[in-house]
């Protein structure tokens, strides 16, 4: 027992938490009505989104304030693809567009549409990553540049009304269809949950490899990693692109569940929110990101029912409490015994 590291000892505890969460998600639809199921089906993609940001921020220490960029682009491409595969959307018709514009033509195929919705954000992130994550730009500047990028995207999406529906966004997006059958609310819930579970498994596997350790090492001491022979930039770019892919998938599922997309999905607010979810849950252990997202989204809805629009005030207070009292986040604190505790245990044992 004495030789086990605190980390290793906590793996069962984390597994328990994940299992609890899984059970909760599986039985939730049995306990409640369609509206709640649909709302939860909207929160689950946000949990995937939280995973993507946790890989980037929690594991690698890159604090992007533009994580909504791949999320939003994925959501938009999926929504437009869904619209144009059914005909010409009404907002295009007002511009006298009578056939699908050439740039959108590949999107009329739903499978290609989904592929593009994942690939284009990845490609963009690859380019941004190559430009940004080279070691020349560090810390807060990465945050500021990504923040500016999400501003640019939001302005552009809002302005390109002819193609994106402008401020009204893209509406009438149907739920995902499998084998020609459009999923019902409950089916969609389980579909989204299944994808989330798979992606969680992928992330968990990825972070438990040596690769995951390198990411942690980069967060702690980027310089040292380079001097033991790792190309830090390519690691960072890989994580950035991978997390963008996750964010894009989250965006696609969100758009299809929600039934619409709007420019605010690309904006700064969502990027900040996801950071907050992770901070509340705890960084760098995936489970914390999931719980943080679930807790805050659930709380927001309950409190909006009780105290109306003042709930944001309460969120502010909670955030302050977290930063003050449990800086490792709720789940993070439950999971990790700090070295101080370890020493005490050693002394006792």
């Amino acid at each position, binding site marked *: 027992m004495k030789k086990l590291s605190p980390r290793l000892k906590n793996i069962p505890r984390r597994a328990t938490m994940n299992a609890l969460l899984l059970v909760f998600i599986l039985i939730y639809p049995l306990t409640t009505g369609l509206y709640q199921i649909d709302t939860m089906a909207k929160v689950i993609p946000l949990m995937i989104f939280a995973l993507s940001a946790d890989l980037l921020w929690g594991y690698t220490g890159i604090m992007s304030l533009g994580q909504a960029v791949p999320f939003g682009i994925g959501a938009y491409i999926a929504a437009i693809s869904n619209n144009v595969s059914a005909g010409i959307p009404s907002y295009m018709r007002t511009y006298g567009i009578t056939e699908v514009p050439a740039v959108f033509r590949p999107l009329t195929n739903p499978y290609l549409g989904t592929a593009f919705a994942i690939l284009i954000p990845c490609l963009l992130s690859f380019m941004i990553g190559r430009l940004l994550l080279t070691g020349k*730009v560090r810390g807060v500047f990465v*945050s500021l540049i990504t923040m500016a990028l999400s501003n640019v995207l939001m*302005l552009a999406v809002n302005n390109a009304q002819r193609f994106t529906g402008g401020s009204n966004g893209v509406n009438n997006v149907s739920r995902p269809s499998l084998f020609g059958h459009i999923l019902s609310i409950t089916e969609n819930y389980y579909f989204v949950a299944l994808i989330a579970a798979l992606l969680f498994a992928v992330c968990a596997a990825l972070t438990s490899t040596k690769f995951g350790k390198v990411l942690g090492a980069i967060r702690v001491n980027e310089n040292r990693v380079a001097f033991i022979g790792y190309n830090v930039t390519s690691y960072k770019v890989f994580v950035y692109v991978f997390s963008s892919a996750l964010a894009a998938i989250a965006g696609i599922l969100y758009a299809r569940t929600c039934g619409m997309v709007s420019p605010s999905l690309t904006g700064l607010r969502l990027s*900040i929110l996801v950071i907050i979810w992770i901070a509340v849950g705890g960084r760098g252990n995936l489970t914390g990101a999931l719980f943080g997202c679930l807790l805050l989204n659930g709380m927001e809805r309950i409190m909006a029912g009780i105290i109306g629009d003042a709930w944001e005030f309460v969120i*502010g*207070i909670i955030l302050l409490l977290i930063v003050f009292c449990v800086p490792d986040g709720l789940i993070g604190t439950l999971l990790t015994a700090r070295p101080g505790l370890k020493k005490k245990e050693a002394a006792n044992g």
Partner: protein
Amino acid sequence: MAILPIQLMNGLFAASVLLLVSIGMVVIFGNMNVVNLAHGEFIMAGAYTAWGLCELGLPFSLSVIGAFALTAILGALCERLVIKRFYARLEETLLATYAISVIMTQIARLLFSSMKKLVPLPVSGGLSIGSLVFPAYNFVVIAVAVFVVLFVCVLFYKTGLGKKIRAIRQNRQMAQCLGINTAVTDTISFGLGCGLAGLAGAIIAPLKIVYPAMGSAYLMDSFSTVVVGGVDSFVGTAMASGLISESTSVLGGFMSEIYAQIIVLIGIILVLRFRPNGLFSKEKR
């Protein structure tokens, strides 16, 4: 009518506004290395304070000074209660200041029931230069901006307080060893930064509607300006606000405002990428 002189004049006015809203951030971000996401909310607080003081019957100039003082006190309070625990911890500061910004916005909504109120223009009417007419208040804003930069420069480079703040920036431990009370100096400089934001809020209040969420529009702008200017340099920030505003204004004269904004933003991103020390900073390590 020649369009360029008008655009340049408008750009100068916009630059003054930008400079005013950014200069507090030079103190807080540049000199204390704190990323203050509540910066916009201090601007909002300043605007509301100025409005309140005007309603009480104070002349506008005194209201502006009052707004500076009150937001400075508010900022110092925030520093004492929250910020001081998180120095040199970027992520915690981001979260804590975001929490502060949310709380401030909500308090403003409760206090002012979200109604938009307008501070009357202290001087109205146009002043003409040659054949061109510009709002008289624009010149007031420009003058205040110049004054504020001079004031802050003198404060930072000619007074003991300024020397202390700069000493702490360069080497906190050494400054402590030299007997500088770093805690008090931190509180004062954070208060100063917030007070400058409040002052900016008071000055722009007559130009627009005052409402609880008004601050968020200025956050990105002031970050960009400060970073392009070289983070801790007042003169650099002044030049950066000039550059950004003039290019937005001049570009906006020839194309859509939206495209002008997008182009300038992309320009800022490139500057951040290739000159992270800013366009105008000389000292590089």
